[in-house]
């Protein structure tokens, strides 16, 4: 293994960099919105909502992501032609649903950990539930949900590599192509690993920044 070969492979793998980043960002966006809705449903006074949310969480945390990706790409079009997605969007679909199931738990645990006295104070002042959730409870819960939320995001970032198996030309797929063409293994994989490490490092730095922003002023 030598450094020069790594330098040679890095630009090739980097061609998939933006696809990886886009896979991640779209999945993060959809899973955050979806996870938030699932969390609120889980905390709803309406039993049907709680039940639906619980079943979705149970289902998509219980099935391997690889299977979800296969399902989104191969099985959905078999059900109906209108459910045929490009590989990229099939991957985003699978990643989003899978991540949303996890993010809903991170978001829900943040919301329920806000002290009960905060709700009582809000109610005593005559605020509606919708109002105090938005202004009092959720802003305080964000601080608590940052670490598990970023933890889930880091997981999703790494799992975008599974999109390779449904032919999305992201970094892992490109690295595998190099391996099968050049019969080199260590160098492309090391280049690949270093890029993932860079991306997850950025996310960890984002976590520190967010924690600083939402820290209570003491």
């Amino acid at each position: 293994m030598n450094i020069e070969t790594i330098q040679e492979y890095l630009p090739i793998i980097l061609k998939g960099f933006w696809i990886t980043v886009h896979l991640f960002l779209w999945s993060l966006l959809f899973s955050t919105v979806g996870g938030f809705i699932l969390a609120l449903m889980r905390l709803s006074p309406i039993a049907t909502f709680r039940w639906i949310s619980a079943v979705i969480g149970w289902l998509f945390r219980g099935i391997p992501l690889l299977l979800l990706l296969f399902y989104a790409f191969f099985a959905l079009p078999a059900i109906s032609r209108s459910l045929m997605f490009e590989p990229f969007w099939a991957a985003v679909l699978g990643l989003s649903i899978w991540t949303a199931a996890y993010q809903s738990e991170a978001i829900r645990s943040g919301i329920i950990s806000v002290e009960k006295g905060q709700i009582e104070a809000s109610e005593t002042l005559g605020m509606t539930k919708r109002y105090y959730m938005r202004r009092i409870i959720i802003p305080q819960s964000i601080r608590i949900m940052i670490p598990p939320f970023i933890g889930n995001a880091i997981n999703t970032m790494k799992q975008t590599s599974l999109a390779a198996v449904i032919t999305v030309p992201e970094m892992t797929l490109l690295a595998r192509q190099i391996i099968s063409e050049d019969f080199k293994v260590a160098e492309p994989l090391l280049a690949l690993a270093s890029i993932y490490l860079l991306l997850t490092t950025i996310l960890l730095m984002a976590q520190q920044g967010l924690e600083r922003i939402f820290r209570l002023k003491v």
Partner: protein
Amino acid sequence: MASLVSVKGLKKSFGDLEILKGIDLEVQRGEVLSIIGPSGSGKTTILRCLNLLERPTGGQIDIDGQNLCKERSGGEMQFATRSDLRQIRKGIGLVFQQFNLFPHMTALENIIEAPMAVNKVDRSTAVEAARDLLESVGLGKWADHYPLQLSGGQQQRVAIARALAMEPAVMLFDEVTSAVDPELVGEILLVMRQLAEEGMTMLVVTHEMNFAADVSDRVLFMDNGVVVEEGPAAQVLGAPQNARTQGFLRAVRDRAPMDEDQQ
């Protein structure tokens, strides 16, 4: 004239445990009523029932002419609707033992939040009123501090100002000095005394016997979910008739300094 606060036959059970066993009390406009009694006697539960933070299991509550709950003929409870309740709660200020300030907002923001959201007061009017209130509780210079940057005594005074900002008809105080350091109790009591002198109607659950004696018009002694004795402050505290009241007051006067923390 009808009482501002009227409670008849108030009952509250948690499961099989009956905390309030039929409480009657009336508070006139401008009157200060202190409720005293041992821990677990149901004092706090009364206050929490008065704005339905706890839902009574029996009896009737009316505040400022509005019905919060009553017992139907079958014994079933009927509560104010959610929107009526919000309306009624605007007129009832509650100050908690644990302050319950919003930690992500400054003192000023804590105070203006509800007037702007609930009473639709515009921001500049709300800010002006909040600054006056902070001034009146001695915290004019602390408007832009966050709750965790303030002492317990200061936080509690902000909490009082926050409740007052809604211009309530009656203020409820739930052991508001119990969670602060002993040397900071005085500054909270001072604010409450001021409020009483301005004619605010107040219901005060307290362990501060001197405050109860000096400031309240009437004192109500509770034990075991019932009102044991009630009357003018001087009478109940100075010359109690009931043996249980006498015993309680003796215990409070003789308490070792250590007990203060537990109370």
